[in-house]
């Protein structure tokens, strides 16, 4: 299956290679560099590149290209999904997945990759199991290790590997037993010029942080489970019970994990928390343009909108922007042509406004199109779909856990066309 893996940074330096079968020369990456050059933007590199003898399947994450070499037929999603899993594991282990951290922890990275694939076929990808096999680096442990010479490699087979619940390790013990759930909803929307919704849907996830001793069996139920249109679960969730009773019953992995993700489709009415009035125009003559954006609250269910940021990808000919904002700060980067207006909290009494002129490259024709606005926002303590967790029950253990649920609404891919 997966033959080799190369990690390449944004500048085109190959800084790590790992082979699971016989060694493949790194010259195979030349094909990748070629495609990379052609694509201009890193996003546009085709995920699958065909070379005379191999296929290169790559993903781009955190400014690193994970390029895997394949020789025979394999479902491309299989590889892509695995590579993302690798990136997530790194993130889990080192806090972030960047070139520096990978270089600093190259031995652990190597050990991880060795465990995750055997002969190119995924072996252990559950982070709970991996952490038992190879302990994540902490400052304390590395100190101890240097002094005592002990290792951070587990000696016994992780028990989870063999049980029916490979995601949970055995013998978990906490003094404070707690379980927290974050319901995070993102609104994906496209609004057109006049402010009408072209398309809107809600993508939600429930992230959990469960620190419970023993083998707790949890049941999470919702006030209004019918809202959920399409769901996908962590493997620990018992699908049958969801089918029949619409409750989420599971034995949780230890620590942080994503319990489920769901989707509330465009068919249901999606509340759009803000409206945007905008007017961006470019003059036929004089190489200039005008910009006027006002943001106001629409359906916020009585909560405040925070962390409001408006991003505009300006056309190439816009040289600079001379604007004034009634609230927040703006910044125009003439290289990337991105105008970023960080508003912060939205005050319904005094609507934030950004107004001023844009200067264009002289002599260039007026841009055809108006740029679209990308909105970012956050509303605490609100799930915009109205989803509510009803209760969390625990079976199988005697103690009383501390439970908590938090709701957050964010803007996902929220775009206003102009």
């Amino acid at each position, binding site marked *: 299956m997966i033959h080799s893996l190369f990690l390449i940074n944004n500048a085109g330096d190959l800084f*790590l290679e*790992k082979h699971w079968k016989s060694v493949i020369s790194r010259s195979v990456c030349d094909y990748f560099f070629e495609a990379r050059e052609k694509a201009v*933007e890193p996003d*546009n590199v085709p*995920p*699958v590149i065909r070379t005379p003898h191999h*296929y290169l399947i*790559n*993903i781009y*994450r955190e400014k690193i290209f994970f390029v895997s070499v394949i*020789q*025979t*037929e394999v*479902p*491309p*999603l*299989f590889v*892509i*999904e695995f590579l*993302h899993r690798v990136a997530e594991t790194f993130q889990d282990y080192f806090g972030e997945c960047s070139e520096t951290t990978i270089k600093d922890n*190259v*031995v652990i*990275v*190597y050990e991880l990759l*060795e465990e995750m694939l*055997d*002969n190119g*076929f*995924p072996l252990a*990808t559950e982070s709970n199991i991996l952490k038992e096999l190879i302990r994540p680096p902490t400052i304390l442990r590395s100190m101890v290790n240097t002094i005592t*010479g002990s*290792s*951070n*490699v587990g*000696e016994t*087979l992780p*028990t989870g590997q063999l*049980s*029916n619940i*490979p995601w949970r390790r055995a013998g978990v013990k906490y003094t404070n037993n707690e379980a927290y759930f974050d319901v995070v909803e993102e609104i994906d929307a*496209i609004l057109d010029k006049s402010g009408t919704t*072209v398309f809107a849907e809600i993508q939600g996830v429930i992230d959990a942080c469960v620190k419970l001793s023993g083998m707790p069996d949890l049941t999470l139920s919702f006030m209004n489970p019918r809202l959920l249109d*399409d769901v*996908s679960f962590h*493997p620990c969730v018992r*699908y*049958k*019970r969801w089918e*029949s009773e619409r409750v989420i019953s599971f034995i949780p992995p230890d620590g942080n994990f994503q319990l489920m*993700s769901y*989707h509330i*489709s*465009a*068919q249901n009415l999606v509340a759009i928390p803000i409206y945007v009035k905008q007017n961006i125009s470019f003059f036929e003559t004089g190489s200039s343009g005008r910009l006027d954006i006002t943001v106001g609250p629409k359906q916020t269910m009585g909560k405040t909108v925070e962390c409001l940021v408006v991003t505009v990808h300006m056309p*190439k000919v816009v040289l600079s922007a001379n604007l004034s904002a009634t609230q927040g700060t703006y910044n125009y980067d003439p290289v990337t042509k991105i105008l970023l207006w960080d508003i912060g909290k939205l005050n319904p009494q005094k609507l934030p406004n950004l107004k001023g002129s844009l200067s264009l490259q002289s002599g260039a024709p007026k841009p055809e*199109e108006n*740029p679209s606005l990308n909105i970012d926002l956050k509303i605490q303590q609100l799930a915009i779909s109205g989803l509510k967790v009803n209760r969390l029950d625990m079976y199988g253990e005697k103690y009383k856990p501390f439970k908590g649920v938090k709701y957050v609404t964010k803007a996902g*891919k929220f*775009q206003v*066309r102009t």
Partner: protein
Amino acid sequence: MLDSNKDSLKLEAMKRIVAMIARGKNASDLFPAVVKNVACKNIEVKKLVYVYLVRYAEEQQDLALLSISTFQRGLKDPNQLIRASALRVLSSIRVTIIVPIMMLAIKEAASDMSPYVRKTAAHAIPKLHSLDPEQKDQLIEVIEKLLADKTTLVAGSVVMAFEEVCPDRIDLIHKNYRKLCNLLIDVEEWGQVVIINMLTRYARTQFLNPNVNESLLEESSDKAFYASDDEEDEDEKAEVTTLEKRKPYVMDPDHRLLLRNTKPLLQSRNAAVVMAVAQLYFHLAPKAEVGIIAKALVRLMRSHSEVQYVVLQNVATMTIKRRGMFEPYLKSFYIRSTDPTQIKILKLEVLTNLANEANISTILREFQTYIKSMDKDFVAASIQAIGRCATNIGEVRDTCLNGLVQLLSNRDELVVAESVVVIKKLLQMQPEQHSDIIKHMAKLIDNIQVPMARASILWLIGEYCEHVPKIAPDVLRKMAKSFTNEEDIVKLQIINLAAKLYLTNSKQTKLLTQYVLNLAKYDQNYDIRDRARFIRQLIVPTDKSGALNKYAKKLFLALKPAPVLESPFKDRDHFQLGSLSHLLNAKAAGYQELPDWPESAPDPSVRNVEVIRLLERVTTLTSIPDWSKCSSRKDRKEKKVEKPFYSDSEGESGPTESADSESDSGSGSASASGSDEGGSGSESEESREETESEEEEEDEEEEKKKRKKLDMTKAKKQADESAESEQSSGAENRKRGRKAVKNQKSASESESESESSESEDESEEESEEESESDTDVRKKKMPVSKQPPKQSKKESKKETQEMSLLDLDDFEPAPASAPVTPVNFLSSRLVSDLEGLSLTDTILAPTTIAPSGLIKMYELLHRITGEGLAVEYCFSRQPFSPDPNMVAVQIQFTNNTNSETKNLHIEDPRLQSGMRIREFAEIDVLAAGESVTVVIGIDFCDSTQAANFQLCTHTRKFFVSVQPPVGELMTPAFLTENDFKKEQENLLNGKLMGMNEILEKLTLGEKCVNEHVIVERVTATANLSRVPCGSDKECSTPPPPPSAPVYRFAGKTVSSGCLVLVTVTTKEGGGAQLTVNCEKMVIGTMLVKDILQALSQ
């Protein structure tokens, strides 16, 4: 440092070496020093040495041999982790000499106690195979052995080994098929992908195509179904007659099992698993069920862009074959300006594939936005997409063409060029009407520089030179002047143009042509020189010119078929979806073709018989005590198999399996141990109860049947025994259950830590079915088809399950998984229901009644098909008060029977996406001869798609559909004349202005002489209101000449409130011009058609 005594120093050294390897530096010099440390006690040092070894052993084979003995020792270590890792490294060092050692190690590990080691053995198989393919036969033996393993841990890995070593040995799968299906949900996610892909291929070879015409299958299935039914009792006979009428396609229960067990995996968080299930459903499921995958695939669109890329590729292929599936999710494919270009283009592809008459206007509107994007590649693709929509959907062709012509004046050259190319293709379809567009394009040639576009224009002019006789020579003149500076592709077209003109209009162009040909003669490009030479010989008459000369005209001016704009994804579905080959549209190495469905199903019993043998093996492993009895039972079974009666039915069983009672036996018994591992303790208890209750319920019937069967069955002794033991079997069962529990406990491994609650649901369901099938099995055939007393909860379809006598042998371990025998009658029943029912969908005919008062009634249900219930409906044109976005539909029920009709209500509306219906309150009783009128509201979403629903009475259900004429989709809007003009202008100035206005000339019918009649006709056709006029004469705009009366009508569409403006300008002599302005193009076009018809009558 490596020679140091301290582990910490060694570790440090190894870390540095590994870092070197990671950076790709050569560390092979250190091999001897490193290899010494293979026996090091420190586990981390050891691991790093392993890493090193695996990397360099191939290069230094001799030295690598030094380490072998360490691994051999490791293979015997009591710690399973060490055993496994020793095997892993041993099999990973690619040294040919040790092949025999590896083979031995793998064989040993394959029967290791620890499933983890067995898993490693499975991983080692492909390694050894690639090292030495000659070991294949031995390896297959090991695979066969491991396939029989029943732990989820091993399943994925061994199937992967199977796929790599011997993917064609499908026969190895037979006996493990059901086990794999049942274990699937518990296998780790990567294994799931591999297993699902393999099972897809397997199912393609073993089952019949569920979508094949039902009649084709009829004989085989019928025969099998009734092969042994000599003595059904009465109600069964009734059942049978209806069955015969329906001619069912009966899905093999194993096929159903696969579909059922994979469905929950659509909910997986792993995109690869979801995709694997999606392709399985796409390739294997009956049409009606494929739809469920759409939702899951759309969910994946939220994932990383690489995932999106792959998913969209597959969706694009699916949309070509099954467009309806994704239509409800149309909006999920809308494009954001932040998407990477490759994603945008794929989404565009999907949108284009999804376009149909109903949604084309929304899609085109989206495309209009895309055209203004900054991303030029994407704009070009959008223009092509518009072109494709135009060719596929005739109704919008003209509007699209108009829009594209507008784009010709765009400032961006690329946009213009792309439009030209697309327009060229469109014009080829109907050149006659568009000579002005051709003229316009001829003018453009001065400005456009993009070679492809220039070439297209020249080709167009040449092809249709008779439509533009004056311009063509002029263009040629200009081109001749600039010939030398043109691109090759343009030059070729200039030559073509010259040749065509020479043939049609030689007087004017003779010299020009010769000039061009002379220029071409000395061109640098040999293609152009060749072409010039060829054409000169062909068209210029010389004394030597051959016969071809005469035909030159025919050659050049032959009618060319219009090009078909096709999706590049058209033929991709012959590759298995989700595969690398599909993505690349080329066969990748190691791709296994997806076989076609077989003509007739192979013998399904292959999946059972051997399972018994499997059972034995498994029982040894899990030490189920009564296994000796099992084998004796198996002997018996084999004996029975030989009985003539049985073999009959087996021979013919075909796809049904219903007749094939034997088939169930295997899995029934196999499941005893092969059941959901870990869960079996609780499960057996569960099933015990189930069996009991089942027995009680069926006791009576079965007792009856049993008597009869006893005569038939040759296994008389057993049957007798069973009849007697009937009563006690429950108790025995219980005993058995307990035993099983005990076994489970004693069975070492961790499997026993079961989560009982999880397996509960499953086992409940399963055991229910099992106990039935199980009993058949032992009873020995004579299946009697009848409705099961309990409908399986979840399956909505009817299942005919066979029942026969219970003959529970006390030594039989608890049954677990056995397939149901679902006989999918749903579709056939539907058909029969529909037979007598004429769908009233031919009501689109325009109305020709007076506007006021009389409103045309449409028939919803004829009195004969409705068995006395007649239903008519009309559009009352009243606003529907509960919801202003709905069209009010008045329905009148008339009961023509002699008895009451009760509980009239609407059920199960099947609507296009976005459409809604508000039902009327149920009518309790409709007395004979009475009639009653109700009003329902339907939101048609401004489309003329029919709203389908079921009309239910207390006895029957009727499928009916309400299809609105376009004129009923609007409500009158009151505008003054000035407003009207303003709105009209607004609409005209919108994007792609050509698309919003439709002009049509007509001749008024004889009766349409006065104002009154015209107004009446228009308002009858469409629910519009007349705009008060009178200021006509003051109006300053030129188009309506002041003398001719102008009638204006205004309305709004009901759902979205788009303005609909209609203008009728009459001229002297009965001529008139009709203008319709509406943002919704489809509505506009249809409205024009309707009004035209109304007025010209």
